[in-house]
């Protein structure tokens, strides 16, 4: 398998879209999925329950210092940034908001790109701001795969549109196509350690 983790960013209109994507992921799905969904800070708990009722994979709130497990889905808690550490544990911070958001998609994507490099998939979904564009660019620059929800099909097109303008994305897909694509990528083959690519600056071509 070429990839080791998936990060997803969603804002306004994102709850049902994320849940539709998660519904596509089967029991033998092997990658961890780490999600920032912008929310009001008082909506603690409900989101996890909602996602859990719509997917076969275990969904839990991201906790500080928690080991990232394959086949698990992690959701950033409200009012905390979520980051990935080099030892593949989760890390929370209450630093200032980024793009008026905490959690911020940029913060997650940037730190995930540092850790997973070209073995990362980043997905930007519906939203009414431009959080995530910079983070998606980091993923692209590290040779990871970049996916964006087709703005035409997004309830709030600004966020995917901004990502598309800012990054030369690999694929622009509607929600069900995104779900199927991730399903294929995450169940394709048994996990094998990917050799570090010798050639510098080699860019993933997005073929899974």
């Amino acid at each position, binding site marked *: 398998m070429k990839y080791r983790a998936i990060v997803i960013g969603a804002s306004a209109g994102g709850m049902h879209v994320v849940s539709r994507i998660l519904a596509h992921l089967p029991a033998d799905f092997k990658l961890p999925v780490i999600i920032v969904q912008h929310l009001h800070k008082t909506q603690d708990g409900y989101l996890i329950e909602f996602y859990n009722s719509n997917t076969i994979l275990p969904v839990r709130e991201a906790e500080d210092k928690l080991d990232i497990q394959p086949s698990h889905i992690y959701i950033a808690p409200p009012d905390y940034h979520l980051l990935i550490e080099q030892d593949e544990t989760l890390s929370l*911070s209450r630093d200032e908001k980024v793009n008026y958001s905490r959690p911020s998609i940029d913060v997650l994507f940037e730190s995930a790109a540092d850790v997973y490099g070209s073995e990362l998939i980043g997905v930007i979904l519906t939203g009414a701001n431009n959080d995530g564009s910079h983070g998606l660019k980091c993923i692209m620059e590290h040779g990871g795969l970049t996916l964006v929800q087709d703005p035409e099909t997004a309830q709030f097109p600004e966020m995917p549109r901004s990502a598309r303008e800012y990054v030369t994305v690999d694929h622009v897909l509607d929600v069900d196509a995104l779900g199927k694509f991730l399903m294929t990528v995450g169940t394709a083959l048994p996990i094998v350690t990917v050799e570090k690519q010798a050639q510098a600056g080699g860019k993933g071509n997005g073929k899974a």
Partner: protein
Amino acid sequence: MRMKKNELEDIELPLLLDAVFQRYGYDFRNYAKATMLRRVRQFVDKTGYKHISDLIPKILRDPSFFQALVADFSITVTEMFRDPPFYKAIREQVVSLLKTYPFIKIWHAGCATGEEVYAMAILLKEEGLYERSTIFATDINDNALTKAKEGVFSLEHIREYTENYQESAGCHSFSEYYHADQKNMIVNSSLKKNITFANHNLVSDQVFGEMHLILCRNVIIYFNKDLQNRVLQLFHDSLIRGGFLCLGSKETLRFSLIHDQYRTIDGKNKIYQKRVRLKDRQGKQAT
């Protein structure tokens, strides 16, 4: 041979933190890396440098530049009655026990610009405990401490603070505790009387003795596991038996070495009580 930017940064960041430690004695080497890297990158951008290693010569020779870096490293994002349910839980589950002591010593570690210290002072006043309380409020950031001592905060957030206060089961009107000028709220000086602000570094400084209550919220989240354990041991050694330890809502004692010496008063609001009868320690760690 080319090396990627983040591979170079893996070399540069420890070099910078080592330079800071050797030159000024501030030890950030055991801070959680991802957030540290993010802050350092921001500092590099803000100060107009290109690479992390460019900061090193300037840091070594210019103490004011170092101060600016420390200010960016230590969190100063806070608010009055942040996490109102926490303060409500203190009122409902801790205050009655504190009332049994003739005097109360409180250590607020990592107090930043002081908003939460004044919130605690208000709570103690309303519960009739302030006059017999002493609050030690500490931070590593001198700029933040100066602001905390002044007790002058922007009116920009007053609405949020007032709402927080009400949600925290405040029983008066929040406006009783400050007066306002054009831009700022100025907290009543009567709230300051029993607060001592001081510089204290959790990484390198020692125990604060015989505390009844220690608050350290959203600070250890920035540390790696080793440093978390060191700091929690420091709190453990600073608390009286039966004393209370309060952490941030996403911080926990669960994985720490002192875990079995505490009972959980409120799991959601992370309020713990040191056991009166401590358990025998097996496999005590050297650090």
